[in-house]
């Protein structure tokens, strides 16, 4: 799901080097104090995050294991999930129709993939149409299908320009869309996420879903690239 909003990455002062330790009442002071080093980033927002997390745990909204499990859950979502969806759609026309009609329900019912956040609209690239996805207002992205978004997707440059000069932005990604194809840009929202169903490349007749999934990359499902076969 993604979520969220907003945008780009400014200076990133995160640099943590966590080492294990406990926290809470009754601190365990047996840990090694020798090398004095900052275990956690100490900037204002890092401390704000730690303070908020501690307070929310103390108030009973969740516990530390919930935090860990959620991180692991999101870590498990990668572009490979999207690739498996695309490969299935390429090889099963009736699945593709259902996917394009009702993405979220079809993925849940037929692939046991929970989109989790928001609705999911899958848009198909064809000989006539090339689709590309953005979130101009923030950074909404189908996180539970494609994993966390790349930084450029959240950047001011991408959000500002792809809606006005999509062919030029695609060119900057090395993607040339011929004048005979319409380019459609889809602007995501907190409640509506898009994923591109790229065109199946020539030369893949008879390939298995697994073989096909192996050549489908993240950028082709955002729409800034097309699926190309390795040379």
């Amino acid at each position: 799901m993604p979520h969220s909003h907003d945008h780009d990455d400014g200076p990133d002062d995160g640099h943590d080097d966590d080492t294990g330790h406990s926290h809470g009442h009754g601190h365990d002071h047996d840990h090694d104090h020798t090398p004095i080093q900052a275990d956690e980033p100490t900037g204002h927002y890092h401390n704000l995050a730690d303070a908020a997390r501690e307070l929310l745990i103390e108030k009973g909204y969740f516990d530390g294991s919930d935090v860990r499990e959620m991180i692991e859950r999101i870590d498990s979502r990668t572009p490979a999930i999207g690739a498996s969806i695309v490969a299935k759609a390429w090889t099963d026309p009736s699945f593709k129709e259902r996917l394009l009609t009702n993405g979220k329900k079809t993925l849940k019912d037929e692939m046991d993939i929970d989109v989790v956040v928001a609705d999911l609209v899958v848009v198909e690239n064809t000989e006539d149409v090339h689709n590309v996805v953005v979130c101009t207002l923030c950074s909404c992205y189908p996180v539970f299908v494609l994993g966390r978004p790349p930084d450029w997707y959240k950047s001011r440059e991408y959000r500002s320009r792809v809606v006005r000069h999509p062919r030029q932005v695609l060119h900057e990604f090395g993607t040339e869309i011929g004048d005979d194809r319409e380019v459609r840009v889809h602007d995501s929202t907190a409640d509506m996420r898009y994923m591109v169903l790229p065109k199946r490349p020539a030369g893949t007749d008879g390939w298995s879903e697994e073989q096909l999934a192996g050549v489908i990359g993240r950028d082709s499902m955002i729409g800034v690239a097309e699926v190309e076969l390795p040379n």
Partner: protein
Amino acid sequence: MTDDTRQHHDMGGLDAETVQPSTHEFEPWEKRIEALVRLLSLRQPPIITIDELRRGIEELPPEVYDGVSYYEKWIAGLTEILVEKDVLSREELDARMADVAARKAAGEPVVEKGVENSGGGA
């Protein structure tokens, strides 16, 4: 619509530099912030919705919006909304931040056991 009517975050169609196809490995502290948002927004009923988080981020001052990193904006926007909704108070946040800073300065652990290394790398 003239640009005078735009809010700061509303940048679709504006001029900007060439897109740099950048990304980075997410840091543990970034993943912890993301997990907080998900845990609160996926509860039924949600403590905070994604739209509310979005509003919290959009209302950050432009210098913060453009000046800090992505997940820093998330925690800034999230805590603004949590204070607004009386989930947390500004006073307890301020007090706990001072406590967190003091513990870090003393080399004491801050992140809960079992959470500290989760999601390292990506």
